[in-house]
């Protein structure tokens, strides 16, 4: 019976709570998330790891929104072609977003899932928050 119970848990892990990391607007309107370590995660993972993840995410978003020669060139080219160039090529921002999605997936697999956590890609929440779902720890204890 215990096995059935834990099997059900594995199929449908119960969500114990969610932590939301809000945006940090101190640098203006660019996409940046707060790196403060939330207290709810203290028992699950170490501060260093978390801050590293957030810092990397912030850096990636900064790269996406960076103003520089490359982005200007892309903008001018797009304007000249009446923005039809984006029918065949994706914008720099979109490329970086894909990179971010891969990074988050990677982080989830390596660091967060083994600790019963799940990082949700901020783009799925409209770049408002980084949602960290904390799963109940039952399945990790039993069934092993």
């Amino acid at each position: 019976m215990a096995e059935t119970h834990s099997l059900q848990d594995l199929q449908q892990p119960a969500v114990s709570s969610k932590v939301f990391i809000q945006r940090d607007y101190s640098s203006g309107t660019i996409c940046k998330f707060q790196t403060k370590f939330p207290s709810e995660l203290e028992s699950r993972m170490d501060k260093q790891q978390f801050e590293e993840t957030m810092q990397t995410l912030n850096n990636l978003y900064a790269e996406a929104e960076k103003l520089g020669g490359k982005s200007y060139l892309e903008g001018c080219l797009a304007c000249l072609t009446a923005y039809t160039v984006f029918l065949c090529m994706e914008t720099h921002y979109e490329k970086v977003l894909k990179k971010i999605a891969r990074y988050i997936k990677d982080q989830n697999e390596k660091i967060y899932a083994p600790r019963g956590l799940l990082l949700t890609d901020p783009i799925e929440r409209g770049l408002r928050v980084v949602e960290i779902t904390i799963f109940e720890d039952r399945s990790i204890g039993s069934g092993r």
Partner: protein
Amino acid sequence: MSQIQHAVPDGPIRYTQICTRSTSCSSPPTSSSAAGTEPPSCPGHRGRTPRRKWQVFPGRNRFYCDGRVMMARQTGVFYLTLVLILLTSGLFFAFDCPYLASNLSPAIPAVGAVLFVFVMGMLFRASFSDPGVLPRATPDEAADLERQIDSTSCSKPPPRSREVLINGQTVKLKYCFTCKIFRPPRASHCSLCDNCVERFDHHCPWVGNCVGRRNYRFFYLFILSLSFLTIFIFSFVITHVVLRSNRTGFLTTLKDSPASILEVVVCFFSVWSIVGLSGFHTYLISSNQTTNEDIKGTWSRKEGKDNYNPYSYGNVLTNCCAALCGPLPPSLIDRRGPIQADTPQTAPQSNGTGGSSYAPTQLHSHMCDQDQCIQSTKFVLQAAATPLLHSDPVVLPPLPAKPASLGGPCAYLGPAQPTLPSCAGDVLTLRDVAVDSHCHHHLHLHHLHHHQHFVSPEETPCGTPQGALPCPAHMHLQHPAPQVRYDPVTQDSLHEDSVRGLVKLSSV
């Protein structure tokens, strides 16, 4: 029918049970995405085309081409813009260009054509694209924010604004009651489209859309190229008329080319406004301000000696490049994405404390929100005009296996859902409190089996808080709600408040 009667005493427990069953059915009654309602289909109907998110978008927008095109609700003026441009340009190419091409240069119609195509392209791009709408908060997020807000203050009303220091300037972030988020700096809520838009400039009826972060450059290029086109057409029509008059006389010219007069008139009146607007927006771009900020005088020197625009890059060139050639962020609302079944349900225990404090806080905040009140009043008055509903006891859920959703949506204190019948859905927002009391009434009246008492065609909804209109809304509203414990005692007192509130509003 029997399910509801049993739902009364069992309340939350039954709700959770049904939730779980429905989750395994892959069509949960609650969806924590901003997408809103879920299709009531069960796994058996999986063969159907999955609905896309634009179909359940909560804002007041219109979507075409299966979600590819997004516009505001009122598009009449946009069609006028289109007609004016097409007509004037068409007449120019038809009547004036043949003469100009043969007598002056074929480059004239060529340049005109390029300008015209560019203008149309920019117009469509500005009108049809997402201006930078911020998706509404998921219920979990909203609840989390509420908890945070509550925890920061005890006695006085919870603060609905945050202050942030940007580049040495203090900027206030306001809480949006409709979208349940703290608006990013420079974002504003468009009341016409009922969305929060990033870097909100203004709502342009000529373009039929909001102008925000994602389509500002297209809007600017549209008005700029339109000014060039207007001046171009104006000057070349005058040239054409003058040249022809020299040869054949003025009146003969007018007879041969009557359209020229119309073109001149249209261009003359347009050129002042369009060129003026282009100039204004050029100024805004060079100082990195939005129309919204400029009108409110947010960064004007008059506000204070130390007041300056923290977003400006310092020099005109960088500001212009950033506005026009900067990276174009993608749309945050994913309109063409399919609506998916949700992730695992939140365990009830952890949300217990959050849920119970949720309703009264929302009540307070909603009662304080003037905007909501105004909207709600409109809808109540609208509701008064619409014929009352079905004599069927609306408490009977026609939807299969979703009786517990009545408990859910009752606690949902959200904005009006345009997809719902307007009277019903929006009366819900009016009585944030009464929402809970309606559950009470539904179940109560169901017990009584008094359909006539519940819905009487003679009574207007304004007068009767029991005026049942939200009932159909309850049917359709399968909203995620933090589990609020159904408590008949508090509902009655809340109900009284709502009656008072309603009576006040109905006297408006």
